[in-house]
């Protein structure tokens, strides 16, 4: 039963992260996007917990705990603070409209499945069949960064990308070593804090956080 249940559960939770990514694309207001990111991270943390339970790995369990703490609680809080300070409630400002974005992301999922299906097939782990989903998340994260005009939503794209890479590692090899994972988390936290400060600076200087306007800085 457990051996049958485990891959199903992994696939389902991976799909949940992908679903959260899709909803994040559709969502217009920043606060909702941040919440969706938290939801995605939560699904990821649960997934890590499930894998940890299945492999009886204490290291992975602590990674799951750290992930939950950092990405479900700390980073959303930091981002919410930034949202509150900037005062932009509905400000995704994508280049493409919602239906077009959905079409593009659907296409990215298809490409991810197409590219990753052989990889998944050659990997012996029971979690392998969800690898294409993780890869789709990576592509979508990239696309969100490309498609959004505002700096804050680009950070969200970056965080989603990072989540998906974590997922990919988890599915393909049951996670990278503990110390590396912690280092990455620290990096992400620092990156988010730095970017937050940058956003304030940009906001103060330009009275807007549209990335387009940074083009004026060049000589």
């Amino acid at each position: 039963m457990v051996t049958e249940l485990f891959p199903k559960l992994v696939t389902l939770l991976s799909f949940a992260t992908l679903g959260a990514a899709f909803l994040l694309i559709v969502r217009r207001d920043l606060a909702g996007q941040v919440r969706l990111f938290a939801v995605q991270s939560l699904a990821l943390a649960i997934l890590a917990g499930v894998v940890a339970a299945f492999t009886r790995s204490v290291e992975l369990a602590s990674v799951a705990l750290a992930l939950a703490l950092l990405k479900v609680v700390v980073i959303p809080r930091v981002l919410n603070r930034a949202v509150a300070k900037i005062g932009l409630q509905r400000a995704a400002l994508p280049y493409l409209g919602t239906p077009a974005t959905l079409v593009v992301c659907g296409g990215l999922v298809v490409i991810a499945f197409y590219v990753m299906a052989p990889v998944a097939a050659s990997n012996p782990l029971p979690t392998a069949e969800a690898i294409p989903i993780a890869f789709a998340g990576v592509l979508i994260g990239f696309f969100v960064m490309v498609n959004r005009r505002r700096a804050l939503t680009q950070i969200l794209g970056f965080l989603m990308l990072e989540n998906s890479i974590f997922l990919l590692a988890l599915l393909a090899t049951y996670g990278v070593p503990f110390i590396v994972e912690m280092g990455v988390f620290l990096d992400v936290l620092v990156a988010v804090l730095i970017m937050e400060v940058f956003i304030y600076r940009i906001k103060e200087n330009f009275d807007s956080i549209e990335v387009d306007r940074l083009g004026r800085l060049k000589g």
Partner: protein
Amino acid sequence: MLTQILIEVIQLLIVGLGAPLLVGLVRRVKARLQGRRGAGLLQPYADLHKLLAQEAVVSETTSWICRFTPYLLAATMLLSALLVPLLTTQTPLGFLGNIIVLMYLFLLGTFFLTLAGLDAGSAFGGMGSSREMAVAALAEPTVMIAIFAIALRAGNTGLDEIIRRGAADSLLLLTPGHLLAFMAFFIVALAETGRLPVDNPATHLELTMIHEAMVLEYSGRYLMLIEWAAGMKLLIFLALLSNLFFPWGVALAITPFALAVAFVALAMKIGALAVGIAVLETAVAKLRLFRLPALLSGSFALALLAVISFLFVK
């Protein structure tokens, strides 16, 4: 033979008599969520009964289409009630058609209702018709792709067979494709039955209406038939959702006990979905008409993801 006739009669009665109760339930829960007492559960019966006693005022510019449509609409819904497996997977008239036939029967009803909306020559009716048809047409691809996803899983497009396969699969709810298809189908069900956020069934403002604007000309028994049919459509969609995606309790063999269990299970599943709809309708606002394509394309994306997940993640 007699049991088969009995089952079909029970199905007709469940859909025909249960529809007003379902509408009453949704309204009651909504009223409670809005901090009101609301009308009783049986209020829709009183409404329909009253409409029957009223005379019908018909626009003088209309033709036979306007008077024929309510009967056809009620008949298509009753026919759907005969096809849908409500209590058992051995629906006697299931051979009449599969799930695609069901969708085309709904489209037939919509086709004539939109014609009737144009018949009186009022601007409201035309507007309602145009919008209803737009929603119906845009919902169609999602429906078919969701059906494709289901057919992929069950290897069949017959309603009975899909349910039987589903009931045999214990890990059903953990299949991502299944859940994605459910979400897609749920959004389509909201659009097809004119619920929020697609259409507001309780609006009084002509310009925000879709379904209601189309039937502004109807009165008396004609209106009664149309409202009844709308209730039946909601019930059939909810029954489809609950039995296709949560096929628990559906009688696999015809025994009185199994049928009783199936009836209770069906009532509970539909009740839960109805409460879900009421909660959703309290929480979300109606979307602007031209934001609807985004919603429907979202549901289409979900359905396509369901197909992809069934194709790749077996």
